[in-house]
């Protein structure tokens, strides 16, 4: 898929969100007593690194018209396996996490594609099971990671603003964007998300693509969990629902449609960067947590209401009634 033109919501939404949050970020000194430092940018990118891969994982399944609720379960499992299998050497932990993520993704993708089950209930069940598995592996306790060298390495500042962790995350976004722009997978992914039957008729191997998307989603979420564990030097068996909610908000801000068939990894990148900037603003301006929650709620609420099909058709009807010459099709 080509990076879309700026008129379309999949590009205009993330760009608008990003521009607004950047302006708010730059103006921080005007409404608080704190001056901006390079550390604030570094910190924003650290927040981005924490949730970026989760957003990418969820966003890819949403483009394909599915919804992978299990990403947070895989995220938790990946983080826990990284700590528990990687005490000797970090590579073993990482391998275990990525392997588990791929296995979870293949299993879910296989069930969803072959049996044609809606992805919501399947991934919800997997989410519950994975949280249970993670908790069983750790005995319900937070596990610490003894390898301090790795912990220091992933978060060391690179070029003032970056860390290896945020660079890896950025690199994966770039890789996903390149793969989906340059190969036919991007087009096919949007085709099956928009209209699965038409995609199948057009010769897309729908089943394989869905299995592949869920496998990618599993690997990306597990890697996100791994990087987080390396960074924190510990793994928490229950990350709560907050990461899922924030990732969904970021994906929607990134121009992905709830109906599927729309979106691009670069848009997702814009969405999660906007969310990370917002989180940093909230932290710097010392706004209470609940205010930022209300802000996210308002944002998501607006997106979902604008996206609501019946409201849309009612508005179109209204408009056609007012201006009879207007053709309703062109306004969508």
């Amino acid at each position, binding site marked *: 898929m080509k990076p879309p033109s700026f008129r379309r919501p999949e590009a205009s939404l993330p760009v608008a969100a990003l521009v607004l949050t950047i302006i708010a970020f730059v103006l921080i000194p005007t409404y608080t007593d704190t001056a901006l430092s390079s550390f604030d940018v570094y910190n924003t990118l650290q927040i981005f690194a924490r949730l970026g891969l989760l957003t990418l994982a969820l966003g890819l399944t949403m483009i394909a018209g599915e919804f992978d609720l299990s990403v947070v379960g895989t995220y938790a499992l990946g983080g826990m396996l990284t700590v528990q299998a990687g005490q000797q050497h970090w590579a073993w932990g990482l391998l275990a996490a990525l392997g588990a993520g791929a296995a979870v993704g293949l299993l879910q993708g296989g*069930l969803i594609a072959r049996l044609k089950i809606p*992805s*919501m209930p399947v991934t919800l069940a997997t989410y519950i099971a994975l949280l249970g*598995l993670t908790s069983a592996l750790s005995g319900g306790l937070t596990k610490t990671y003894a390898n301090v060298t790795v912990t220091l390495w992933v978060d060391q500042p690179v070029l003032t603003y970056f860390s290896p962790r945020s660079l890896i995350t950025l690199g994966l976004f770039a890789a996903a964007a390149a793969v989906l722009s340059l190969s036919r997978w991007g087009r096919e992914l949007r085709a099956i998300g928009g209209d699965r039957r038409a995609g199948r008729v057009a010769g897309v191997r*729908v089943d394989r693509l869905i299995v592949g998307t869920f496998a990618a989603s599993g690997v990306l979420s597990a890697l996100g969990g791994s990087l987080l564990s390396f960074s924190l030097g510990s793994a928490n068996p229950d990350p709560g*629902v907050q990461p899922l909610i924030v990732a969904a*908000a970021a994906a929607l801000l990134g121009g992905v449609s709830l109906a*599927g068939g729309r979106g691009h990894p670069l848009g997702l990148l814009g969405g999660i960067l906007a969310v990370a900037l917002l989180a940093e603003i909230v932290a710097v301006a010392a706004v209470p947590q*609940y205010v930022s929650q209300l802000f996210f709620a308002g944002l998501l609420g607006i997106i979902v*209401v604008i996206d609501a099909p019946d409201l849309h058709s009612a508005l179109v009807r209204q408009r056609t009634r007012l201006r009879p010459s207007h053709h309703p099709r062109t306004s969508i």
Partner: protein
Amino acid sequence: MNVMSAPPRSDAPIRRPGRSRSRAELVIDAVLLLAVLAAIVLALTTHRFATVANAKAILTSASLVGIAALGLTLITIGGSAVSLAISPSVAAVGMIFLSAQSFGLVPALALAVLCGILITGVQGAIVGYAAANPVVLTIAASFAITGIATGVSGGSTVSPTGGGYDRLNATPGGVALSVYVLIGLALIVQWTLRRTGFGRSLYLIGENRRAARAAGLPVGRTTAVAWLAAGALFAVTAAFTAAFNTSANVNLGGTLTFDAIAAVLAGGTPIAGGRGSALRTLAGAVLIAAASDILLLRGSSTGVQILVKGVIVLVVVVLVHLRTEGSRA
């Protein structure tokens, strides 16, 4: 998202009628029968499982999740998939219920139910009239409810302002009051779904929203009413949960959202809507409570109990899907 709210996929291959279908159904039935037999054997060989005291324990632990799951059943049957805002709604209503105790038990209960109806009803109206995506809308709502509850309470824990709530913890005949309430409400919901015009239109809207609209059914209003009723049922859960804990904060709901969804799905109600029943949800809640109970008696950790809950939901979802697809083709 089409997968969550849309009618069954139209790209399902056309199955040959006759032998192959019935064979598939036979296999599914055999698998189910074996699973049930294995569960019974496992249960009976578990020490202290088949006792009256344990049966009471299972029912009590199923009752709170069960009442909320009955509300969710209405939402799911009507084709609005699930609400992900159950826990925060229950927490907020629980806090209101306890802080209104100084007015007495009945006014506090009435206020709680009213607030529950309001909180969930607003979401239902948006889903019903605008066809907004229920999953994302309720994600937003969960943020909003938690945010407002934290802001209003200052993040502190609410203590009861009177002692009336303790009557909800009564155990008439040695069984918790919430169990009687669960069974009574399940029968009422079941009757409403099967015997009233509202119930029948809800099934049709869940099965095919466009057809229901074309048939002239009040799609928006029926959906909104289903959510209102769900809000009332969430409020009943909230009152019992708050009374049991004797205090309430924004974390009162705990994992209730996913427990309720698990109960609905484990009962065999498909998430796409148009099918299912209150009694199925009741069975699902008891099934999960019984499975957790067996694992607890056998000394498994909390993690293993959650894991098994997830696997049960997954297996039931797959089996129900295969059966409905089989009989539909």
